[in-house]
């Protein structure tokens, strides 16, 4: 079952483009990555899910129901962590969390304390006195305390130290194993790579590609690095080779296609060293953005 169904969704702010004709589905139980540079339309898409803004055309459905029409109902089961966290400054952390919990049908008290303990959050402090990282933790706890079926994360790790990022990721994995679907927007490819099963790449308000992380990395491209003396780079300029570079004593390129073709080509030479590896998402990403 699709948890999120987006069909031909467009949003303009006056004449300025937010997103344009975006369509994709997120299936139950997956961790779906949503990557793109700043201004590509990631936050716009998420804000449409949450009815913070209204679509110009097209539709987004969550749990099979329209995001606008059934907004309050579907949001019972959505946990949202915004990229920038700002809360009522005068409140204490515990009061904000209780306020957050008061919106949901179920009793969230126990889970709230579990999460706060886990994230090492001091709930007695005033929000005003918290550092950015600690405010982010408040955001995480308030977003997850009702054990939502869909977790929407908008660049969640900024401001968290690496140790907390680790804890946060394992928390998200636990939630996912419990059955929660995760929609994870980020421009940090490494974290998407670590966490997600599928990704959509968004650029200039449109989806460029949606693929399994594994497909994206394995089936598509290999990064080849050959070290040898007197190697002629032009020799490898065959079909499927991109980004061919000669770098003193080494030849590097991306290859997409039958791997045997390239290994035969390499075997014709007397080489000193050879690396064939999956490119990082970063490299794929740059490839898509060229």
């Amino acid at each position, binding site marked *: 079952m699709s948890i999120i169904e987006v069909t031909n969704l467009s949003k303009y702010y006056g004449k300025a483009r937010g997103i344009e004709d975006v369509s994709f589905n997120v299936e139950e139980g997956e961790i779906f990555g949503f990557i793109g540079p700043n201004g590509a339309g990631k*936050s716009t898409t998420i804000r449409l899910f949450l009815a913070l803004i209204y679509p110009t055309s097209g539709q987004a459905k969550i749990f099979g129901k329209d995001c606008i029409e059934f*907004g309050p*109902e579907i949001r*019972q089961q*959505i946990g949202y962590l915004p990229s920038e966290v*700002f809360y009522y*400054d005068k409140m204490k952390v515990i009061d904000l969390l209780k306020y957050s919990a*008061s*919106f949901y049908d179920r009793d969230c008290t126990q889970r709230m304390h579990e999460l706060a303990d886990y994230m090492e959050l001091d709930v007695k402090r005033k929000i005003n006195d918290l550092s950015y990282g600690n405010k982010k933790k408040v955001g995480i706890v308030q977003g997850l305390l009702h054990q939502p079926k869909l977790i929407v994360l908008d660049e969640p790790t900024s401001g968290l130290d690496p140790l907390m990022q680790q804890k946060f990721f394992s928390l998200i994995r636990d939630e996912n194993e419990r059955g929660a679907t995760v929609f994870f927007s980020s421009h940090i490819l490494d974290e998407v790579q670590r966490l997600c099963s599928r990704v959509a790449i968004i650029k200039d308000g449109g989806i460029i590609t949606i693929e399994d992380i594994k497909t994206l990395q394995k089936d598509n491209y290999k990064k080849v690095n050959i070290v040898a003396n007197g190697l002629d780079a032009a020799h490898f300029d065959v079909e499927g080779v991109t980004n061919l570079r000669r770098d003193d004593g080494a030849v590097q390129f991306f290859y997409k296609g039958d791997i045997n073709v390239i290994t035969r080509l390499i075997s014709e030479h007397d080489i000193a060293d050879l690396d064939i590896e999956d490119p990082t998402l970063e490299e794929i990403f740059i490839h898509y953005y060229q």
Partner: protein
Amino acid sequence: MNIYKHELKMKIGSVIGWSIAVFAIIFIFMAMFSAIAEDAELLNETLASMPEQLLQAFGMTGIDMATVLGFFGFAFTFCQICIAIQAANYGFSLVSVEETDMTADFLLPKPVSRSRILTSKLLAALTALTITNVVVWVSSFLAISMFRDGRPYDSQALILLLAGVLLFQLVFLTVGVVVSLFMKRVRNVTPYTMALVFGAYILNAFGGMLGEDTIELITPFKHFDPNYVLGNAGYDVPLVLISVVLVLVSIVGSYRLYTRRNIQTAM
């Protein structure tokens, strides 16, 4: 109910502040009453010698400072300004503060509808204003009974005047809300509040000065002019109806605008 409670809690400090202000205005003015009333002849003469336009600007025409309500009406104008500022401030900030403080990203993704949020917020603001309103009632009767020096007054007229406070507050509250929703972003509430309140006040004052009837029709300071209400022991009903219409139109407009509003991002 949770939003209502939360909103009310956030306003407690402000309500106490404004309540002290109206209490102080009423008491300080009325404490001067007996001294002024004794020299009322002189004061009334002085007033009479002033230019008519100036008196109109301060809403002091046709009042007798020697009577309890004549003097109270004069004092009440200042009280009205305070009440109006408080109500307009609540109105302009009601929804906009969530966007300037970026807390809309917390509140709106919760499982509540926009109209429920607006209803809760309006009711919380109304409760806060009613607390101040009650303080106005209590202070008025208390101050008058303490300082009237046995002079008689028409309590019916006073009750009538005070009964109008709620609607007067509602005008500024709801107009504030609807205007803020027409804006893309309200960065600072104070200039809007001041513009609305003093705009409305000056419109009434200048209307009086210029003898221009039409422009003063839209200002609540005219609709609830204390001198008129106390002097006639009644309201100019068609004028009050203009206020009622203002409130209704503002409320309907606010719901329509808010339920369709695109919430701005942090940037």
